[in-house]
């Protein structure tokens, strides 16, 4: 075979299969119109072990539960800028009937696309804008933060806790405050040091921040970023750490005390079922430990029995509604009383939280 012929054959083969495959794809698309198409937009990679991973577990849960009644797809690492609107739009125009946009920055893009696709149902995580076909949901992760704070307060020997945070938005600040409140209820001498990593997902930066905190004497770390890097550096340096988003014990089995975990599956299943039944309505949902969307991972064997008991009691109280985490007295960093005893912070105040509580060290950036 001369070289030219060989070359022709090389390019012919894929071109042939291209035509056949394109035809097959077209046929497949027309036959398969039955299941509910559910789309997910993720801000990070599905393998981040954190935020996006937890949402993807939710997606897989829906698929496992509803089987061939649904067909799910996702787009990962969608930046919260101008690209988001296109991805959401493409999802809607590709026949998805229910779309979950799982990061705050997708709020305005989701709203814009929702207006253009009135028959498609949109669910946006963590935002405050809604429309006839756009609901919002979130989870009371701060309840888990509070419980893990109790553990941290009991386990620290240096009385310094380290917190690697992403960006000073209310969700993150709420987490820091809830953690601090729990820790100081367990151990009034505790202070919490915060390092702002200015990223949601950057394992190298997260590790650096963790190491800075360890150098500053912190012996229990936790994070509000999306990777498990701080667990790994805690394991390497022989201190404790508390995960977030998912059970991260895999990344440091001695260091990992527990973690605040999200469990989106049941919520997503409910929404998908509602769309299938035609009973879906645009509402704002903020479930938590009582509903099971927030939980904590199993406690490390190193945690003493009495602490386990304390955590179990407090968890039961949250479930029963007798404990609301930000129950008074709540004192802010300056020493001013925010909530007197007998009262509790309202949801609206929690949603816009922009101050540290007493026990947090350092200054909140630009508040």
């Amino acid at each position, binding site marked *: 075979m001369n070289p030219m012929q060989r070359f022709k054959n090389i390019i012919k083969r*894929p071109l042939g299969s291209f035509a056949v495959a394109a035809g097959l794809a077209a046929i497949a698309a027309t036959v398969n119109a039955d299941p509910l198409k559910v789309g997910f937009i993720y801000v990070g990679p599905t393998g981040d072990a954190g935020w996006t991973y937890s949402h993807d577990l939710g997606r897989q849960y829906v698929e496992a539960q509803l089987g061939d009644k649904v067909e799910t797809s996702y*787009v990962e*690492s969608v930046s919260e*800028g*101008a690209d988001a609107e296109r991805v959401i739009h493409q999802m809607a125009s590709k026949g998805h009937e229910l779309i979950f946009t799982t990061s*705050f920055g997708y709020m305005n893009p989701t709203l814009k696309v929702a207006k253009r696709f009135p028959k498609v149902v949109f669910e946006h995580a963590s935002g405050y804008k809604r429309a006839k076909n756009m609901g919002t949901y979130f989870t009371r992760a701060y309840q888990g933060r509070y419980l893990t704070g109790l553990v941290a307060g009991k386990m620290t020997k240096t009385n310094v806790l380290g917190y690697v945070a992403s960006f000073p938005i209310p969700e993150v600040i709420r987490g820091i405050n809830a953690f601090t409140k729990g820790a100081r209820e367990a151990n009034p001498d505790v202070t919490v040091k915060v390092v702002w990593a200015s990223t949601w997902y950057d394992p190298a930066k997260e590790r650096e921040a963790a190491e800075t905190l360890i150098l500053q004497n912190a012996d229990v770390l936790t994070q509000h970023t999306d990777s498990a890097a701080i667990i790994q550096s805690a394991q390497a340096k022989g201190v404790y750490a508390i995960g977030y988003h998912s059970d991260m014990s895999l990344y440091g089995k001695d260091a990992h005390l527990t973690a605040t975990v999200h469990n989106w599956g049941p919520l997503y299943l409910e929404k998908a079922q509602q769309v299938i039944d035609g009973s879906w309505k645009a509402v704002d949902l903020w479930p938590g430990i009582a509903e099971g969307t927030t939980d904590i991972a199993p406690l490390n064997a190193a945690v003493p029995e009495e602490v386990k008991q304390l955590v179990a009691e407090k968890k039961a109280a949250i479930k029963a509604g007798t404990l609301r985490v930000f129950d008074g007295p709540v004192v802010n960093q300056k020493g001013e009383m925010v909530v007197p005893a007998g009262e509790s912070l309202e949801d609206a105040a929690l949603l816009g939280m922009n101050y540290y509580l007493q026990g947090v060290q350092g200054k909140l950036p630009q508040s």
Partner: protein
Amino acid sequence: MSSQRSKHLFGVRLEKRASDSRWMAYCSPLLAILLTLLCGAGIFASLGHAPGAALYTFFLQPLEDFYGWTELGLKASPLLLCAMGLVLCFKAKIWNIGAEGQFIIGALGGGYMALQLDSMEGPWVLFAVVAFGALCGMLWAALAALLKTRFACNEILTTIMLNYIALNWLYYSVYGPLKDPAGYNFPESALFSDSSLLPLLFDGYRLNISLYFALLALACVWTLMSRTLFGFQIAVLGEDASAARYAGFKQNRLVWLALLVCGALAGLAGISEVTGPVGQLNANISLGYGYAAIIVVFLGRMHPVGILFASVLLALTFMGGEMVQMELTLPKSLTGLFQGMLLFFLLACDFLIGYQLQWSRPNRKISTVDIAQKAQE
């Protein structure tokens, strides 16, 4: 006979061409695209997808409808604007890595103006916002120009560092003074009023007049580079700085001009992004356009038309990457893989501009014997 002889041959030889091949200079990008497609097909096949259908999903499905075409224009415009500024700098061998920062400062400055003029109406509002954005980008580039001409600071370092300063200034602004007072403390500004949003080209599609800005910039920079003394001086400065000095060209003035034009264009791209598809300031207004534009300039061989194609191609790979995720649930890394392959093959194929593959011939001795035998027959 030639085919018979080639049987005895083994391997290829590289030979320096007497002069660069013009033909190859045009073919190299096409060859690179072809090789990328072939490798891409192989990757899709190894992932268990029909390569043809997967390539179709990646490169053609994004353009199946009009929406896709408008989005392509929207995605390519900022790339093109930034690349048009950068090409001027790179031609003069001024290694300005700072288009990203100039983009951000343009967006931030213009966005600030848009928020200040919130209650005003009239066409001048938009003009003021866009002009101020471009001016801010220009001033940001002026810092690098000042450091280079006055203090002989390496512009690669200064522009990279200015990028970080710009980004953190943006963070400071959206987490602080420019935060929407009614936005539950989330890090974004209020939405801009309608009078400071760029007019859309088609009702219901996001593509706006920033496409015209980009095409106008293309025409201007092309004219500037090929038809003016300034363009000539830039080219000479890039080819041989001492020759430029000898010819009496004012080097500092050229540095200032190239950087200022680049800053203005990148700033224009930035303000077009926030007054276009985004509609407000937030922490994610730049998606790395300033950096991606560097690739675009080299992919487009520093020629305005090449850069136009390159920016469209790069924009398409972003959209295709989203599409294969959605349709085939393949990971996002494919976008980077395709972009990387494209650049890799382009650089590899560029080698053929200066060199040629020579199917190595058998010994001259043997071939003369061959010929002698042939003659006897």
